[in-house]
């Protein structure tokens, strides 16, 4: 079986900084896969390469068998591959509901489809998802009036609204109240199990990623250091050294 996402020998440098060096990894459909590594190890860079935010220097990226490393950002998103940002990005001047409505999937839609009054069905879907992440009471507030953690939750809900096939989350629990983290892990698992979204998650919180992911890749200094199931990664000498020796 071929993987849903196939990254092969991808390299990316910023001037003298080799952020990614010949990285290869796979994410299979229906799975939850983790990506860990010390600060600056190239995790976000890899996500950005995959979604087309910057061109890769070399290597191939395939999504559902199709080469996407030369496609534009919007076109990749329209294939059903959506990412969230480490530095949360939402539409601050719009209400939460509006943030949700404009996040609905663009797959197969043309410019003309934008000239429709927003539908009630979409409105309900938006409300349901806002309730799902616990923001229902705030749905008519401007998104920039939400706290950082709430904005993170809103961004997650927006991503689900897009009904992606694969969702790449860049540190979804960073800045979230520790008491709420278990709830968020639950939501992520539900998104995977109930909505059928394949998840690829960058995470610094070891407890989170160990309980979430079925398979974990670990980067260090832009290179793939180790991969395997959570128990293996947790006890991997190289991974422990990379984290302890990082700073």
């Amino acid at each position, binding site marked *: 079986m071929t993987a849903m996402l196939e990254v092969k020998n991808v390299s990316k440098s910023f001037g003298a900084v080799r952020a990614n060096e010949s990285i290869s990894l796979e994410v299979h459909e229906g799975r939850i896969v983790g990506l860990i590594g010390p600060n600056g190890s190239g995790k976000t860079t890899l996500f950005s390469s995959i*979604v087309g*935010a910057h061109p890769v220097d070399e290597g191939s990226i395939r999504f559902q068998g199709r080469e996407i490393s030369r496609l534009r*950002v*919007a076109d990749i*998103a*329209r294939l059903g591959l*959506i*990412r969230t*940002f480490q530095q949360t*990005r*939402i*539409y*601050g*001047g*719009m*209400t939460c*509901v*509006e943030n949700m*409505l*404009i*996040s609905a*999937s*663009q*797959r197969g839609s043309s*410019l003309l*489809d*934008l*000239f*429709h*009054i*927003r539908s*009630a069905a979409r*409105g309900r879907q938006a*409300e349901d998802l806002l309730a799902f992440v616990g923001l229902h*009471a*705030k*749905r*008519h*507030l*401007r998104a920039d*009036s939400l706290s950082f953690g709430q904005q993170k939750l809103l961004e997650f809900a*927006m991503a689900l609204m*897009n009904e992606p096939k694969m969702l790449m989350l860049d540190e979804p629990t960073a800045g979230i109240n520790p008491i709420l983290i278990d709830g968020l892990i639950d939501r992520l698992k539900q998104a995977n199990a109930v909505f059928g979204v394949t998840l690829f998650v960058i995470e610094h919180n070891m407890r989170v990623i160990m309980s979430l992911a079925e398979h974990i890749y670990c980067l260090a200094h832009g290179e793939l250091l180790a991969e395997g199931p959570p128990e293996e990664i947790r006890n991997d000498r190289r991974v422990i050294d990379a984290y302890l020796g990082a700073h």
Partner: protein
Amino acid sequence: MSVAAYRPAGYLAIVAIGIVAPFLFPAYQSQMAELWLFIVFALTWDLVGGQMGYNSFGNVVFLGVGMYACVVAQVGLFYPVSAYNAARGGGATVFTFDMTQYLEGLAIGLPVGALLATLTALALGSIVLGMRGHYFAICTLGLGIAAGEIANGWEWIGAGSGMVPPNAPDAVGDLSRFYYYFALALAVVTFLVLRWLYMTRFGLAINAIRDNEDKAEAMGLKTTQIKVTAWMISAFFLGIAGGLLGNLKRFIDPIDTAFAGPTYGVWMVLMAILGGKGTLWGPVIGAVVFQVLKEASWTYLLGWQRVVLGLVIVVIVVFFPQGIMGFVRERFPDWFGHRVEGGTIAGPARKETLR
């Protein structure tokens, strides 16, 4: 009590006032006609500058293109344009237009102006809308100046001595009231079209581009296409406004009327900011307040009017950067639907709001 309940009555009242105003205040008819066009200026500027966050100083290009295209078509349908322009100032030939010719010229000229302005937006937008922030603003400023220079040097359309729109046939007399109602109609239609537009997903899409363009793209919105389309819609209405303004002013100067960056070009921005960027009513209110201020300072402060107007601009930008509507929205957020909990939401999210 919802504001929405009074809305249809409010709209009708405004249009009714617009219809009877020239009879009540005939002395101010030309200023009021200009006001309706100013409302179109501010509304169309705000579509791109306010709702989409792309501050353009070059929208006068579309005004000027619409103006010249309309008048050139009005003339060119019946006479050679260069002969018409050359004859001004007492040439041998007198160019007259009978009633059918005059109306036919207008009926074709205005749409031609709108079309050319729209195509200009398509061509220019595909190039400059790739730029962001200040780069875009400065680039559009350059476009406005360049367009003025081109018109200023182009003999066929009268070059620096400008162009005079066809004279109405003697039988009909003064057409200024006719143009007043034309301007009123254009303002109403522009308002209603934009009001509808802001209720569609397109409206949300341009707001999303304003708030975070990278995010919008990452969510699958084809931002370049959307931005160019928004600018084209803006240019379409400005193009018609240009045709009307040229005929209303009865003389087109390439730099002072058509591609008038320092006046119309700046005023468009100012009116939208004064009333409140990114709101539906802000540009309308801004245009009204601005026109009153402008006319009052012209009347009572002769010689100092530009100084006073300049000071007013500074005060507005420094103390009311949010504009009148922005100020109101800060004070009464729930009028705009920004509230915690509260009523149920059904259908279009903005239906119960003021925007």
